[in-house]
């Protein structure tokens, strides 16, 4: 019983290490082709449109809703201590430090990451990737790199938009519905947010999350089994693994920033 468990653990570890090695090689390949000519700017712009512009509605709406909920919850809690004047700070800090980058990354994983993985996996299934190889066109250069880079460009901007719409949602609830003074809300928000501690942290998080989502979605899609079950596994795998990775890395970055 014990040797079987130990051997399974050993094989599992080896499998994990080799898997991480393959991901690292894949990432290296993307990096290499991204800095090499041709730069494929048109494909990059199209991918930014797919990942970024098409995610605008869901991100802005979610941002405003989350901001509104934060405003409501924050107001209820702060009013117990007679500190409703700090509502702007509560909404602002929560959004900038955590909710903005994390929720945007999770939303983009569900919308654009899964679509990216499904598209690449179906290209594998229908032979389009092999077709590119046979035309001596590197599929990582032609298909994968523009998608991964587009995520790196789109996600931080979406995160900033999510946060801005969150401020607005909090303002609408706190000021327009609950009657707080607008100037107080805005000045509390302004005073509480520090560029180095909060904005920079938010930016670093969203860039790291973008790299995670872009890599996981393209890797899963590119290495999918060429069957319809393979497309489905690549899509769900992307959402599950990327979501867990985002939450894990969120903790790691927050912990390192606090040191």
């Amino acid at each position, binding site marked *: 019983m014990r040797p079987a468990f130990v051997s399974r653990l050993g094989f599992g570890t080896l499998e994990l290490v080799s898997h991480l090695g393959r991901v690292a090689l894949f990432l290296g390949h993307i990096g290499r082709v991204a800095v090499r000519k041709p730069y494929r700017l048109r494909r990059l712009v199209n991918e930014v449109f797919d990942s970024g512009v098409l995610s605008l509605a869901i991100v802005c709406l979610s941002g405003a809703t989350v901001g509104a909920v934060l405003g409501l919850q924050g107001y209820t809690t702060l009013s117990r201590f007679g500190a409703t004047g700090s509502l702007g700070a509560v909404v602002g800090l929560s959004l900038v430090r955590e909710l903005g980058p994390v929720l945007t990354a999770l939303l983009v994983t569900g919308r654009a990451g899964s679509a990216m993985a499904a598209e690449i996996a179906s*290209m594998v299934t*229908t*032979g*389009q990737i*092999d*077709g*590119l*190889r*046979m*035309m*001596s*066109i*590197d599929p990582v250069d032609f298909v994968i790199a523009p998608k991964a880079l587009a995520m790196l460009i789109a996600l931080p901007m979406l995160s900033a938009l999510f946060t801005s719409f969150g401020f607005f949602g909090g303002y609408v609830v706190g000021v327009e519905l609950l009657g707080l003074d607008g100037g107080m809300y805005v000045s509390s928000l302004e005073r509480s947010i520090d560029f180095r501690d909060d904005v920079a942290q938010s930016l670093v998080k969203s860039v790291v999350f973008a790299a995670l989502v872009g890599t996981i979605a393209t890797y899963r899609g590119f290495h999918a089994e060429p069957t319809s079950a393979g497309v489905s596994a690549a899509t769900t795998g992307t959402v599950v693994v990327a979501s867990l990775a985002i939450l894990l890395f969120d903790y790691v970055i927050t912990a390192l920033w606090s040191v």
Partner: protein
Amino acid sequence: MATSGGQRAVDGGPADEFRIRFDGVQLRRGDRRVFDGLSCGFARAQINVVLGGSGAGKTTLLRLIGGLTRPESGSVYVADEDVTRLSERELFRTRARIGMLFQGGALLDSMTIFENVALPLREHTQLSERDIAAEVTRRLVAVGLPDTEYLYPRQLSGGMNRRAALARTIVTDPEIVLCDEPFSGLDPINVRRIEALLVDLNRRLGLTMIITSHHLASSLRMADRIVFLVDGRAIAGTPEDLLRSTDQRVLEFLRADSDGPEGAPRIAPAVASAGRT
């Protein structure tokens, strides 16, 4: 017909006659052995047709030549270079000499037919956009698809997609053309059209062609050489050799085809025209 078997026993002549050569290739898919020491050659500047039942390994044979699939053992030589030993980057150099038509077409569905056919020209030549447009239009007309440039693959039928994919395959006039079932799903007029196009390319430019097909009549009309895949090995020869063969497995294949919906009579005229000019 000569049967392949042992070490370097490439049938039908000395190895240097062949542009592409398989040497003792072993390949397994799960528990099923696809190739069991396959050794055969595909002659330079000729139309080589690969016949065989479903699952005989016809598509796999083309994928091995393109380096898309690696064998368990054995070698596949493309112009004296063993593609089984090449890295992915080195394979890009070899593939630049090869055009491959996939069974499903493999057109990029995010691009129009024009962009698909123009892609190899844009990637690998210095032609101006005007010259590219002229070349693409010429190739699309040749495969019987005029005025489809701005349509997407999803707006065309399966057969039309395959013809557009053929236009993309030959647009750079590669030295070696691999066609996986180019006639399946086509009506008789388009079978003749594609057949004539492939024969013309072969005769005019001396391209080496390897065509897998279930379509016996057109295979016999076009082929300079036939490679029949059975039991993981190859039986090769001219179309006349195939029809004269006493091998039970070949006879069974021919008999099954002549019992098909188009009936026995189609084989006789095919033989008569097999020695076309």
